[in-house]
């Protein structure tokens, strides 16, 4: 049916929110990224100088590197674990409702509480996880002083926190694969490995892509975990892009630089989405022919 004015009115609350609180501010940020701007000074057009400053700032590169490395480990770690757990559940588990509830429980937890939990477990000297590591003859995780350890801990808690999302998507998609396909393939003489590769993986691919896309886009904006655990320290070694942006804006009051960072993040997010749609399109065409 063709929409009338009334129907445009019905979609307007959603669209007004999106335009006024996301689109307009982000366009303004784009404009601001070409200005010199701080408190108590008129803005002044300076071309791409903010972007050049960004590219020359070693802290920006450090934040970008941290973000890219962590996002990839988090996203693919979740994918492997989520797929493994989904297949385990599909095979049948005792008390499946209770087990399912336990696996999705981390989804309900606030980032702040997640940091409370993992900080408690990895508290220097006295945390239970560090105690266990010592017991196994391994070195302690010194996240407060060692940036690699801190980033490792953040990666671990991010995987813990977001695994339910990936798990639910893959599990429901796997439940949607008809059993007949497996039976037919088994009759054709496929072994377990071939069944996994040619039936499970192939038919799960759309769901895997969706999980990857969403987790890439969402992991890329990671802020709270890092802010609450290290605030980017020691000596700005554990910053991610969102923390770099926050500090540029609200600590150093360099709004132009912060805006340029913001647009760099926007462009990266859309590139990821574009990359996803390309793959999705290719797959569709591959199916059609």
């Amino acid at each position, binding site marked *: 049916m063709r929409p009338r004015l009334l129907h445009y009115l019905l979609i307007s609350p959603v669209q007004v929110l999106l335009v006024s609180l996301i689109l307009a501010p982000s366009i303004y940020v784009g404009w601001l990224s070409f200005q010199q701007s701080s408190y108590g000074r008129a803005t002044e057009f300076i071309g791409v100088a903010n972007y050049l400053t960004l590219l020359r700032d070693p802290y920006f590169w450090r934040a970008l590197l941290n973000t890219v490395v962590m996002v990839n480990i988090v996203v693919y770690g979740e994918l492997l674990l989520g797929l493994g757990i989904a297949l385990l559940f599909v095979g049948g588990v005792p008390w499946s409702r209770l087990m399912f509830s336990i696996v999705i429980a981390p989804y309900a937890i606030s980032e702040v509480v997640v940091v409370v939990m993992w900080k408690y477990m990895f508290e220097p000297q006295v945390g239970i996880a560090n105690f266990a590591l010592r017991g196994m003859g391994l070195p302690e995780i010194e996240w407060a002083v060692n940036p690699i350890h801190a980033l490792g801990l953040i990666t671990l808690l991010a995987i813990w926190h977001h*695994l339910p999302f990936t798990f639910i998507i893959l599990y429901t998609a796997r439940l949607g694969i008809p059993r007949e396909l497996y039976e037919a393939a088994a009759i054709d003489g496929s072994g377990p490995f071939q069944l996994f590769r040619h039936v499970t993986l192939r038919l799960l691919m759309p769901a895997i892509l969706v999980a990857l896309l969403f987790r890439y886009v969402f992991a890329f904006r990671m802020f709270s975990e890092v802010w609450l655990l290290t605030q980017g320290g020691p000596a700005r070694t554990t910053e991610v892009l969102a923390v770099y942006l926050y500090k540029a804006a609200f600590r150093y009051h360099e709004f132009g630089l912060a805006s340029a960072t913001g647009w760099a993040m926007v462009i990266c*997010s859309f590139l990821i989405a574009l990359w996803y749609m390309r793959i999705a399109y290719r797959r569709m065409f591959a199916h059609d022919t």
Partner: protein
Amino acid sequence: MTRRPRWLSGIRLVLLALVVTWSAFPIALVVLASFKPAKMIFDIPPRLFFMPTLENYRSLLQAWPEFFPRLLNSLIITVGTTALTVIASSLAGYVYARYRGGLLTASAFFMVVIRMLPPIVITLPLFPVANWLGVMDTYSLLIALYATFFVSLGTWIMKTFVDQIPVELEEAAFVDGASLGQTLRRVILPLTVPGMIASGVFVLVYAWNEFLFAFIFTTTRAKTAPLLLSEMLGAVTGVDWGAVFAAATIQLVPILVFVIAVQKYLIAGLTAGSVKG
């Protein structure tokens, strides 16, 4: 189907135990610790059996009485956000399910794409604007921000739910002379309640737990429970772990129970909102 060899079942049980430990251990640790006497909190190995005490909850009440009004703020903001999201998403979802047109398609595409934008980007211009409008540190600002980032998913979920309702039902109502408002209220609304729950669940969990926007846009009046928790964690006098665990437990138990209770809708919403979108 052939029966699985016994050793394989054994391995599967071990794996399941590992998965359950991984998911539940950090939560159980904190909830249990909130009932432990303060001096036992860092006992190694942790004690499973102890006389539960409310000592930590008492010290939370004494040292951080502010926590309870903040919890109420969180509740108000969560309820407001959920209501706004569900209402706006239902109206839009209905239109996107039933009507077609160039402008509608374009706006649907816009709706899905714009949501990819990192929330921190918009804090930059909104900070001065919120100050200027005098909405800094208010419930309405947080409610509007939280809803904005979830109306896309909500609308999409509602659209897929309305898609499943036969269009003949409405046509019959229209033929009988019902207006659009009456048809929505009497015919569509009762049938889309599951969709409304599904689109409400995600934003409810998000609004109750959110940190970034609350951190930037609230200072006192509208401060939320997660923000106060982060302040307890960063207290310069050193972390009072007992009180932190008590506060964390109070914050997490209701939402955890809620998520477990509505897991059916969580799954339905994720399937509708992501796989088809």
